[in-house]
């Protein structure tokens, strides 16, 4: 059975768009476009459910899977201190439900990988992509507020990233709102700021989603969302909102488009530098690598969290890594850890979720990245981008056709 996306790709179209409803627009991160789009899609029953992230505080947002437009309205705005990956939550939802979900690139890529593994019917999921400059771990955000901004973290009411600065709005003396901004670059030079995975994430635009929304390219001071329409599916949900009068749309200027592209390139270059800087194994010999992997992975307590949260892993409790692993084995590295590395070599999207939940702080994302990047380069394959591509590990034919001959002659 082939999964064929009935909605095709299309020539990209670029817009500036915003919520017609002023309240939504005011509450939205930029133009409130995403919220207005989802609200109208729910109201017209274009979708059955929306999966959004609702703010509890600057440091906490909880996922909300709902058919209630009011809940979606309350969830407008972007939370940079809330590193959820939403992909796996979709698995809890009956597969015939049509769901709209705002997705950072790593959410979208996870969803696409799960769709490749027949866990999600992508035809029913509307990926409202969000550009992503990265997220900060919520506790690191609190520490930042206290230690570098000199604030009582609990007084911070709003956080925002603009022009390379992390701005915190807080309740100052006498209850008046005040703000303070620090340059993210400078925070990060001191080892603070975004999660390591985000610092080294080169996928800044959700080009694999149905729409790509963000503020890059929006002229300064304008409350609008820059929207790139990437698929017919994206066009359909956008048209639905337009017909309802929920959003207002104008064509993006050449200049807007160019500015966005320029920022994307700059961010990618920065990410590439971080990737090198954070790779502590760059100069190590094979035996040093083996010692590092053994020493790190021997701490594993086999809680299973890294597997449970991985947005590209589609296995349940019968998974091979769990099943073949036996705690009675006295191996230097457990079969669980090695099998996970192996099985994700083609598919890891370096989202950082595994490392973040590891109770014994094993640098799992770095470890997996070392293996995956080599494999993915060898395969010339980028996971999470195109649902029609089969994960190479499951394929019969070799992807690396150029290499195929060498492999065969090796076997002669």
């Amino acid at each position, binding site marked *: 059975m082939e999964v064929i996306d009935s909605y095709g790709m299309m020539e990209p179209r670029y817009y500036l768009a915003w919520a017609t409803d002023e309240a939504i627009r005011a509450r939205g991160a930029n133009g409130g476009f995403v919220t207005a789009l989802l609200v109208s899609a729910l109201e017209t029953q274009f979708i*059955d*459910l929306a999966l959004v992230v609702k703010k509890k505080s600057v*440091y*906490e947002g*909880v*996922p*909300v*899977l*709902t*058919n209630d437009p009011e809940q979606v309205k309350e969830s407008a705005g972007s939370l940079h201190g809330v*590193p959820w990956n939403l992909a796996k*939550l979709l698995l*809890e*939802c*009956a597969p015939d*439900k049509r769901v709209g979900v705002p997705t950072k690139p790593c959410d979208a890529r996870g969803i696409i990988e799960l769709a490749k593994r027949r866990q999600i019917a992508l035809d029913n999921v509307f990926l409202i992509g969000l550009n992503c400059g990265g997220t900060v*771990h*919520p*506790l690191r955000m*609190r520490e930042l507020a206290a230690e570098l901004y000199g604030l009582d*973290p*609990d007084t911070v009411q709003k956080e925002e990233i603009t022009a390379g600065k992390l701005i915190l709005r807080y309740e100052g003396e006498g209850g008046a709102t005040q703000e303070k901004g620090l340059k993210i670059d400078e925070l990060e030079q001191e080892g603070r700021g975004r999660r390591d995975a985000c610092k080294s994430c080169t996928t800044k635009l959700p080009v694999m989603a149905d729409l790509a929304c963000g503020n890059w390219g929006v002229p300064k001071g304008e409350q609008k969302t820059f929207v790139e329409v990437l698929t017919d599916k994206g066009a359909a949900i956008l048209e639905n909102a337009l017909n309802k009068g929920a959003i207002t749309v104008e064509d993006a200027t050449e200049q807007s488009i160019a500015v966005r592209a320029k920022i994307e390139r700059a961010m990618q270059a920065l990410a590439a530098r971080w990737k090198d800087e954070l790779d502590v194994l760059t100069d190590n010999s094979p035996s040093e690598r083996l010692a590092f992997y053994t*020493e790190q992975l*021997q*701490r*594993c*307590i*086999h*809680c*299973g*969290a890294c597997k*449970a*949260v991985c947005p590209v892993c589609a296995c349940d409790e019968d998974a091979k890594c769990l099943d073949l692993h036996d*705690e*009675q*084995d*006295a191996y230097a590295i457990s079969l669980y850890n090695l099998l996970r590395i192996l099985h994700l070599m083609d598919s890891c999207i370096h989202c950082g979720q595994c490392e*973040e*939940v*590891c*109770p*014994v*702080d094993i640098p799992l994302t770095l470890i997996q990245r070392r293996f995956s990047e080599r494999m993915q380069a060898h395969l010339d394959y980028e996971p999470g981008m195109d649902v029609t591509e089969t994960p190479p590990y499951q394929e019969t034919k070799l992807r690396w056709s150029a290499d195929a001959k060498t492999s065969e002659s090796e076997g002669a």
Partner: protein
Amino acid sequence: MRTITTNCPGCCIACGLYLLEFSTPELPAGELKLSLAHRKLAPMNEGKLCKFGMHLPAFYAREPLPTLVDGQETTQDEAIREAKARLERLKPDEIAFVAIPSAVTNEELLSFVSGATACGSTNRCFGFEQFLNAIPEDARSALTNGLPFFEIEAASKIVLFLLDPYVHYPLLARRILKARQRGAQVIDIAFAHNRRGIANETVLIDPLDPGSIQKLRDTVANSLIISEVTPYTSLVVISLVLRLAAETASQLFLLKPFANSTGALLLDSSGAEQRRDLFEILDRIENGSIKGLYLLETDLSAVVFHAAAVKQTLSQLDVLIEQNAFRTPQSELAHVTLQSEPFYRKRGTILTIEGRLLELGGESTNGLRILEQLGSNRAFAEVHAEVKHALGLGTAEPTEFEIVAPRVEAVVNVAPLPHREPEKPEALGDEHYVLWYKTNPFFWAGIRDKGFVELSPTALQALGLFVGDALIVGDAAEKTGFKVAAVPEKLIVSEDPLVVHEHVPWRELRESGTVRKVIVKRA
């Protein structure tokens, strides 16, 4: 979908997490699914959970306890009336009240205490009473003192005493590793090397000769000693640890296995004469001097892990009242059962080992209401205010980011500490091994997680074992598997609550602590 902010009841760290409840409209009508998500904002664990925490959705999917009187289904009000009437038929000192504080709120505990006090019972037990009796007043703060984990990370010298953090309190391990990264010296005083790597220095001691730690004064000097107390900690070991800390000017930090251990220890300030050790209560049930037992959110056969013997003892009771969210092996013996809500649905607070007063994310106060209906019928707010008063807290509601529990830096006078000259360790016969229980959250929940014991390569040869073989440890009725590990020749380590003894007097069982001399055979 509902997102419930909650905490793990698996140990005193009380890790934060979300439980996600899925139902309509995302699932077909009638379907309900509970799953878990990591709550990264939680200061005690940054969202990370151990294997037990990851297991919580299954833990909460156990069979609920129905409300019954003599096996017949009835209303809660009727069951409460019956419970009251039956307890009133007994003399006060014939009734015991036991609450192991893992899935119990402070409010429930306080209510339980006032109920027991009102009834005049002197047999109240939260699991740590043996130490209250044996340790002099001025040293007792060592039992209740907590320590925020950021202070562990900042320590310069840490001594782990018979504590494998990866196993006993998994979310503690990373804090010690952080301290090491920051340059701390970490010394592991243990029966075996830690195979996951924790310390820069390991000092092995003989499990049959814990007194030998008295020779380690120089090693320990001026450190932060981290160890644990559990219902099974032997008095010899705890007094050795107290002594060592006092004599080396070290700070002592004792972890405890139950989520609300600190709350329970601090809330009940009444004297030792009102309270009784768990194992003594069991002995008194056996000899008939205790005839009634009220079990609050407590699976005794898990905590006292000798399930068959517990059942035999409890079957002698005239009145057994069980209040629990879930069925336990004792339920079939209970005369009155009262269904409460699972921990994640409870409204109320717990006090963690770090000293955080956590407000649980649930909304139900049914468990508290049952207790109050038996007693003084107060509203939640009133009991809650009393809890804060009892803990010496103001009226403000502290957040999870504050450390509020009182910490007493007492100067321990070692003189009155129980002290036993270390006996000469007895020689082990060829067939004898020393079994060490490495307790952990699964252990206290009565769950066999591993299904094997660890033994040395030498023992493997001596016992003639091959891959796939099984062992009989002590008088165990069941076989168990094994894993070869770098442990001393004669040590066998079990992370499972493996029953290796026939029923012995309960107090004797407790005194043997977590170390048992056993005969091990190939099955």
